């Protein structure tokens, strides 16, 4: 069982302090790496940094868990997954650690988090993101989550997204936006 929380996650440091050169690299790669044979060289040229330093900084940020992965990030909507359902569940506090892990391990769940309740307005403490080509598919997958949660779940709903109003990379500038 590996549950990562804000407080502890063995190989990672809690608050890795990014230096300005890391920040420059993050800002320069939010839209992706250059698609050239040596992307580190290209980035280095752009930022006035040696290529081996660029690569070393990325490797270190990945080790520290600041960079979760470097990947070809698919656009699920464009691929045909038109329905994005945020499934939310009211799970018994005593059981959520174990059950959250089981739900997170389901192959179709892309994100799974525990979040606080805000009673009486919001009673759901487990969030699992599910994608589908139809509402029926999302509902079927939600049904499988319900099976995992069983009696320890007191209620649930699915919030479908109707529009993406903003989606950008991580911003690090102190002045925000």
């Amino acid at each position, binding site marked *: 069982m590996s549950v990562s929380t804000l407080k502890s996650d063995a190989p990672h440091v809690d608050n890795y302090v990014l230096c300005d050169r890391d920040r420059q690299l993050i800002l320069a790669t939010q839209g992706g790496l250059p698609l050239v044979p040596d992307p580190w060289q290209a980035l280095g040229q752009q930022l006035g940094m040696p290529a081996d330093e660029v690569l070393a900084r990325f490797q270190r940020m990945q080790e520290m868990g600041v960079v979760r992965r470097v*990947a070809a990030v698919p656009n699920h909507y464009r691929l045909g997954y038109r329905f994005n359902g945020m499934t939310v569940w009211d799970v018994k506090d005593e059981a959520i650690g174990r059950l959250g892990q089981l739900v997170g391990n389901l192959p179709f769940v892309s994100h799974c988090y525990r979040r606080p309740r*805000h009673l009486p307005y919001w009673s759901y403490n487990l969030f699992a993101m599910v994608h589908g080509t139809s509402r029926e598919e999302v509902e079927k997958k939600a049904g499988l989550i319900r099976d995992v949660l069983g009696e320890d779940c007191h209620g649930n709903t699915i919030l479908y997204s109707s529009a993406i109003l903003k989606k950008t990379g991580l911003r690090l500038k102190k002045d925000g936006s």
Partner: protein
Amino acid sequence: MRLDTTDKQLINLYQRDLSVCERPYQEMARRLDIPEEEVIDRLQSLRNHHVISRVGPVFEHHRAGASILAAVAAPPEQQDLVAARINRAPGVNHNYAREHTYNLWFVMTAPDEDTLDERLDELEHQLRLPMLRLPMVAQYHIDLGFDIDWEALA
């Protein structure tokens, strides 16, 4: 854009991770048994057609600073206006409309927790709407994408 088997293989293999090494595309080329140049051309084309949004790092927000998921219940007739205000607030990088009383869901980030709280307070005050603040308490799945069911999509 019609995807061929190699495109699908590229996505399957590299949506989760590609190696952070000196020549990352060469390594992909070796594994797929195609020239490096072809890997680069294919990635370029997949990106141009928005099949992949990028080839690059995915940052862990809470390790590179502070972030939170928040939601508001905007009166339907004001939803666009409220959404625009949220989008303009500093540090907001995602904002989704969802079918629920809480109809606007956004992620706000900041360099540290204190700045994040200040930004949220300021936005809440501006919107005059109570805000659900839903920080992550535990993560049960590191986001590594999910298996793409190509047959179902065909």
